[in-house]
């Protein structure tokens, strides 16, 4: 499969692979199906609560202040930082109202899910939770195309980051939730990639992204303008 690496977010490669346009030049995007199966936007938005929250609640069964291992607390705080990044990005995009149509709908649905992830991780970590860094997305939320490209980069990164950490978790209940968040991030990645016009699933196997690599990538975007701190320590956690 031909791979183009001509687009980046900071240093984050957005692998364009084959574009859907190349694969489907006639643009036959099965409109008949869309009409047949369409879930209306109103249906999404009527769902006041995000589904899957019950499983997320399992994260906080063993509070950080108690029996969670330092290892797991550290991993959950890392996940929390990535979720802060994503949720702030979608929330800002929603507030700015620059998105239209399917992209706007996707930002609303995905944003609500990322906020639910933040809430669950914060609850699980209790006083050990790192606080939300401050972000400056540099205008990428103000333009549909740049928004989608950034969303693709963030979601693909989140998939790789959760994938690298899952086998390192010691608590089985936490692993059960983390692996389930991981596949939701992959759904988001596929959704955003399709909206951006690139193949939702480029490879047969998704690669893990190590923490130093993810940290370097996020730092390269310049989106984080000040790091969060835990209540326990003044030192920023998201230092790689």
């Amino acid at each position: 499969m031909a791979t183009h690496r001509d687009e980046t977010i900071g240093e984050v490669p957005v692998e364009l692979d084959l574009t859907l346009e190349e694969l489907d030049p006639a643009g036959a995007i099965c409109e008949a199906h869309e009409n047949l199966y369409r879930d209306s936007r109103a249906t999404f938005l009527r769902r006041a609560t995000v589904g899957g929250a019950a499983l997320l609640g399992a994260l906080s069964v063993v509070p950080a202040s108690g029996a969670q291992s330092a290892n797991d607390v550290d991993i959950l705080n890392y996940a929390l930082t990535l979720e802060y990044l994503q949720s702030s990005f979608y929330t800002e995009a929603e507030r700015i109202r620059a998105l239209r149509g399917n992209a706007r709908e996707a930002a609303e649905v995905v944003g609500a899910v990322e906020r639910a992830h933040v809430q669950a991780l914060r609850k699980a970590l209790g006083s050990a939770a790192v606080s939300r860094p401050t972000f400056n997305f540099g205008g990428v939320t103000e333009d549909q195309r740049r928004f989608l490209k950034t969303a693709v980069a963030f979601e693909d990164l989140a998939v790789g980051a959760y994938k690298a950490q899952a086998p390192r978790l010691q608590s089985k209940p936490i692993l059960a939730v983390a692996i389930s968040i991981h596949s939701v991030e992959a759904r988001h990645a596929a959704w955003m990639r399709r909206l951006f016009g690139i193949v939702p699933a480029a490879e047969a196997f998704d690669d893990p992204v190590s923490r130093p690599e993810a940290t370097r990538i996020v730092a390269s975007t310049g989106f984080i303008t000040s790091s969060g701190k835990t209540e326990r320590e003044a030192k920023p956690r998201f230092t790689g």
Partner: protein
Amino acid sequence: MPTLDSRHSRSDLLQRAIVAGGALTAGGLVVAGLPKLASSAPSPAQDVRVLNLALLLEYVESAFYAEARAKGALRGELRVFAEVVGGHEQQHLAFLKKTLGSKARTKPKMQFGKATSDPDAFVEGALALEDTGVAAYNGQATNLTAGALAAAARIVSVEARHAAWIRSIVGKTPAADATDPSLTEAQVLTALRKTGFLRS
């Protein structure tokens, strides 16, 4: 609240922990998709059992897409989907067969009927297979050794991408929930039988 200590059996604690987790947030929410954890700790022998379940799924998925491509009845993005996804499933199949070696289960007998030629039936089959695939891998995560989990995690996210893709093509929400459900082995087998693709 339960803590992970040595006075209780590990699996008992985990099961209770999960149930309690559901109860904590159950008010007004549908309690669904709580993981059913196995009663035995991860081991190489259990990895074989779990990976053979994955192999069964990949056999069905790869044969489904291969037949759809051979029949050539799909058009537009559905055709692209069948080609790209079918290629992935073949690679998953090859990986699992190689990993399991002589312990790999045999290929099941399958029949897809019009699901590989009629676009609507194809969509229905693809939705069922991909969403079941995600839930099956997720449901086994805690049963795997770390090495096997690392390998399975590289596959499950691709299945989730496939599921989101086909859902998106037909206008279904690709990811409405904060977590994906998980299925036990028995539930996976039931879901597979429900497709009618397995010939008994």
